């Protein structure tokens, strides 16, 4: 009987935890997107006012951001000198950051698209490419925040209730 109760508690807690994780997932994605937006804004100002080359600019960004974004730009700063093109190091950094990040494939596609413009456009074109990427992030974060507010409570209840149903069915 004790094992039965322990199993039931484990199933209910596990399902509730899963529900909370799903509710949190959109929030984590928004947080990472906003961190990338911050990084791109810093990159724009590094290009505009400091006239820094990409390697030190990426190093600065890595110091001023946190989490996946910091590791991503740290990676670029480390590899850009040895890579043939700036995009190569950008793509390599994306491949490294992808498994540990909460961003969706479409977000990585947008960042990859921006990476293709790195290093060969003039200052104004580079700024507009950054602006385009920031616009994408703004639109996505707005969409995600609306969706997250709507779905949060649903995921919480869904997790707990499905745990209870599984427990009742297996009892």
């Amino acid at each position: 009987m004790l094992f039965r109760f322990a199993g039931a508690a484990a199933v209910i807690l596990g399902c509730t935890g899963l529900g909370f994780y799903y509710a949190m997932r959109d929030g984590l994605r928004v947080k990472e997107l906003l961190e990338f937006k911050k990084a791109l804004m810093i990159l724009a100002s590094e290009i505009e006012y400091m006239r820094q080359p990409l390697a030190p600019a990426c190093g600065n960004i890595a110091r001023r951001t946190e989490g996946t974004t910091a590791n991503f730009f740290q990676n670029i700063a480390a590899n850009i000198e040895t890579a043939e093109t700036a995009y190569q190091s950008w793509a390599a950094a994306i491949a490294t950051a992808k498994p540990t990040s909460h961003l969706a494939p479409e977000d990585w596609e947008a960042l990859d698209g921006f990476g293709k413009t790195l290093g060969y456009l003039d200052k104004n074109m580079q700024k507009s490419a950054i602006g385009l990427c920031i616009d994408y992030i703004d639109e996505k974060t707005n969409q995600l925040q609306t969706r997250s507010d709507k779905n949060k409570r649903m995921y919480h209840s869904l997790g707990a209730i499905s745990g209870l149903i599984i427990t009742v069915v297996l009892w």
Partner: protein
Amino acid sequence: MDIGALFQIAAVGILVAVLNQVLIRAGREEQAMMISLAGIVLVLFWVIQYVNELFTEVQTLFNL
């Protein structure tokens, strides 16, 4: 018939009804309908052996 089965069916009914409401409030009517259907099928699987017993009982009672 075990009384526990009745309580189990009642619990599943209540939980499926709550889940249904939660999903409808979140604008997911299709999933809500699927959950209701799954609940009905689950309870039918539990009940089917009792229904079978009932029919056999009736058959033996009336010598059919």
